[in-house]
C-alpha cells in the first residue's frame, strides 16, 4: 500500500501529439481515485504510465517515496485489471490467480499459494470455478478472476482499466458495488479509469476529470457536481447532462430564452462588462410548477415552455424543450458537445420532472426552477463564474472525513475478525 504522486506527467507519441499533457495528481495512501473523461482524453494512457506499460516522456512518478519512472512494470508491485481481463486462456482459474505468486520464485510454498488463492476465490465467490478454464466462464466470472489475480498478492496499489465496460448493465451495477466493498475492506490505494460517470460518481473518493490530456478538475464527486470549475466538467458530470442556455446580462437580471431571472449572488460583480454568458441549469433542478406548493413556488422563477417529446421512466420523466440559441454561443456549445462525444444535433433543453407530472408531448408546460442554482460560465474561456472555492473545499473536506471514517471502520472490522478469514468470506457472501 502506498501513495502515488504524479508531477507534470507528459506523454508525447512519435508524431509529437501530447496524449497526456502536464498532469499533476496526488493520490493518497488508501484512496480511491477515478480518472474519467470522454474517449481519447488520455485517461488510459495515464494509467498505463503509472503501471509502467507506457514510457513517461517527462515528469515524475512516485510510488511511496521512490521515483519509479524507469522501473519495469514488475518492479513497481502494482496489480492491474485490464478491460478485456487478459486471463491466460491455457490456465485454469486456480492457476490464473496463482500466476503472480508463482512468478515470485521461492517466496511462497505450494501450501501458501493454495491458502492465498483460496482466500481470494472465497472473497470473490469463485470457489466452485477454480478448476475451470476462462473460456468456460461468463463475463462476470472472468471479471472476478481478473480481480482475484489482482488481490491475491500484496500489491501496493490496484489499477483498473475500464473493468466493467464489457459487462451488461445489471452485472455492471453488482460488480461496481463489489469493487467498492473490496476496496474499502482492503484499504488499498486504487486508481480506476472509466468513461462512465455513474461509476466515477459512485466509486471515487476523488474524481479527476481529463480532457484532451489535460486535467480539468480533481474533486470529490459532490464537489464536481455542485462546483464544476468550467463548462466541460459541468457538461460531463450529471445525467442527463446539464443544459446550457445563452444568457444576456441586463443590469441585475439575466435574459434567458424562457424569460428573465435575477443574477445569482455568487456571480454578482463577476459579470461586469459582460453582455453574453452561458447559463447552466441541471435537468433535475427544474420542476413542474403545477405540482409544487405555493411556498416553494414563490422562492423560484416559473416559465412556460412548449414540450416537444416526453420520456416517462417510472421514477422520473424527461421532457425535451427545443429553443433558439444565440449565434455567438452556438459555436462554443457545439465545440463542447464534440468534446463530450456528442453529436451536436439540435439545441434543446432537457428537464427531469417528477413522474407524477402531467406534462405530455406537444403540450405547454409551466416549469419552475431556483435561480440560485444556476451556474454561469464565461462564453470564451468556459470558466465557471459562480464557482465557490470555499464551498468546494468544504465539500471535499467532508468527503475526506467520510473516507477516513470508512477506512477506520474497515480496519476495526478486520482486526475484530483477525484470525477468522472464513467469517470474512461468509459475511461477504451474505452481503451479496
Amino acid at each position: 500500500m502506498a501513495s502515488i504522486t504524479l508531477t507534470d506527467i507528459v506523454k508525447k507519441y512519435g508524431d509529437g501529439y501530447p496524449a497526456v499533457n502536464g498532469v499533476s495528481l496526488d493520490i493518497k495512501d488508501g484512496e480511491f481515485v477515478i480518472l474519467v473523461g470522454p474517449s481519447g482524453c488520455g485517461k488510459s494512457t495515464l494509467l498505463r504510465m503509472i503501471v509502467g506499460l507506457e514510457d513517461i516522456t517527462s515528469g515524475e512518478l512516485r510510488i511511496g517515496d521512490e521515483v519509479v519512472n524507469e522501473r519495469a512494470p514488475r518492479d513497481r508491485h502494482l496489480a492491474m485489471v485490464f478491460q478485456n481481463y487478459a486471463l491466460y486462456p491455457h490456465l485454469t482459474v486456480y492457476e490464473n490467480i496463482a500466476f503472480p505468486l508463482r512468478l515470485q520464485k521461492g517466496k511462497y510454498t505450494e501450501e501458501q499459494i493454495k491458502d492465498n488463492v483460496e482466500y481470494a476465490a472465497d472473497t470473490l465467490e469463485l470457489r466452485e470455478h477454480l478448476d475451470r478454464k476462462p473460456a468456460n466462464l461468463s463475463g462476470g466470472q472472468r471479471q472476478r478472476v481478473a480481480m482475484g489475480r489482482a488481490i491475491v498478492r500484496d500489491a501496493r496499489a490496484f489499477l483498473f482499466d475500464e473493468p466493467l465496460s464489457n459487462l451488461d448493465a445489471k452485472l455492471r451495477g453488482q460488480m461496481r458495488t463489489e469493487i467498492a466493498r473490496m476496496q474499502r475492506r482492503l484499504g488499498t490505494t486504487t486508481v480506476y479509469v472509466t468513461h462512465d460517470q455513474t461509476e466515477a460518481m459512485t466509486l471515487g473518493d476523488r474524481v479527476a476529470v481529463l480532457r484532451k490530456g489535460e486535467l480539468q478538475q480533481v474533486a470529490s464527486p459532490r464537489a464536481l457536481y455542485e462546483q464544476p470549475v468550467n463548462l466541460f466538467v459541468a457538461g460531463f458530470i450529471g445525467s442527463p447532462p446539464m443544459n446550457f442556455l445563452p444568457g444576456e446580462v441586463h443590469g441585475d437580471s439575466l435574459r434567458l430564452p424562457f424569460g428573465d431571472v435575477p443574477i445569482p449572488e455568487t456571480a454578482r460583480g463577476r459579470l461586469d462588462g459582460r453582455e453574453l454568458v452561458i447559463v447552466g441549469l441541471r435537468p433535475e433542478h427544474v420542476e413542474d410548477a403545477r405540482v409544487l406548493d405555493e411556498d416553494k413556488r414563490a422562492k423560484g422563477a416559473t416559465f412556460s415552455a412548449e414540450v416537444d417529446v416526453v420520456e416517462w421512466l417510472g421514477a422520473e420523466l424527461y421532457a425535451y424543450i427545443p429553443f433558439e440559441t444565440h449565434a455567438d454561443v452556438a459555436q462554443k456549445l457545439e465545440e463542447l458537445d464534440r468534446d463530450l462525444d456528442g453529436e451536436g444535433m439540435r439545441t434543446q433543453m432537457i428537464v427531469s420532472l417528477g413522474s407524477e407530472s402531467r406534462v405530455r408531448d406537444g403540450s405547454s408546460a409551466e416549469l419552475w426552477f431556483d435561480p440560485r442554482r444556476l451556474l454561469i460560465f464565461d462564453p470564451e474561456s468556459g470558466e465557471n463564474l459562480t464557482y465557490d472555492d470555499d464551498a468546494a473545499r468544504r465539500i471535499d473536506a467532508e468527503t475526506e472525513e467520510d473516507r477516513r471514517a470508512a477506512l477506520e471502520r474497515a480496519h476495526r472490522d478486520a482486526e475484530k475478525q483477525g484470525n477468522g478469514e472464513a467469517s470474512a468470506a461468509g459475511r461477504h457472501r451474505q452481503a451479496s
Partner: protein
Amino acid sequence: MGALSGKQKVAWAAITIAVLLYALFPVASIIATSFKLPSDLSSGTFLPTTWSWTNYEEILGPDGSAQELFLSSLRNSIGISLIATAISCVLATLAAYAIARLDFPGRKLILTTALGVSIFPVISIVTPLFNLWRNIGLYDTWAGLIIPYLSLTLPISIWTLTAFFRQIPWELEQAAQVDGATTWQAFRKAIVPLAAPGVFTTALIAFFIAWNDFVYGISLTSTEAARPVPAALAFFSGASQFEDPTGAISAAAVVVTIPVVVLVLLFQRQIVSGLTQGAVKG
C-alpha cells in the same frame, strides 16, 4: 447453414464425387501399380491381375535390389526434413514474435523480403548454388540441403506465425509483466503456450515442404550420403537392364506418402484450427 433440399444434396454429392475422383485417381493408380508384378505393368488394366508384395520387397526387403538405395535415402529425407523444420520453427517463432510485437524500423522490409524469397524460382538458384556448394564443400552433405530448405520453409513460417502472434492479445503479455514477469517469462509463460498450436501447424507445413522437395534434392547431392527420397526414386533400376522400375518407384512413392497422410490425419483438427483461428477469443 440451413438444411439442404433434396436436389441440392444430389448436386453437392455429384460435385464432391467429381472432385474426389479427380484428386484421388492418381493416388489410387500409383497404389494399384505398386502391387503389380513387373510382367503385369503393361497389361493395361487398372487393378493388378495378381496382387503381390514384390515391389515392396524390392525396396524394403533384406535382399531387394533397391533396398539400400531406398533406405539410405529415407534416412536422409527424415533427418534433413526434421532438422530443417526444427531450425525454421525456432527462427520463425522468434522472428514472427519480433515482427508482431516490437516496433522497429524495417519490419515491413523483412516481411516483403521473405515473400520475395519465397516467390523466387527455385530452378534459377540451383545452378549457382551447385557451384558454390562444390567450392565450399557443402555439396552432397545434409547441411547442403538443410540450408536451401530453410529458404523455402522460413518465409511461409514467418508469415503464418506473424499472423498468428498478431491474434494473441497483447494484454496477456502486459498482464504477465504487471504480475511480476520478466519479458522472457511473459513470452514463455503467456505467449508460447498459446502460440503452440500455430507453431505446430507451421512446423507441419514446413516439414511437408522439405519432405516433398525434388529440385534441390536431385541437384545438390550425388551419393547416398545426402540424397533424399524424391531424388532417389530417379535412380531406381529394374531387376535387369530391360526391366522397367515403375513398380518399385510406385511402391517407394506409396511408402513416402504414408507419413504425410498419417500426420495430416492425426493432426487435421489442429491444422485447421491453427490455420483458421487464433488461440484466444473473448
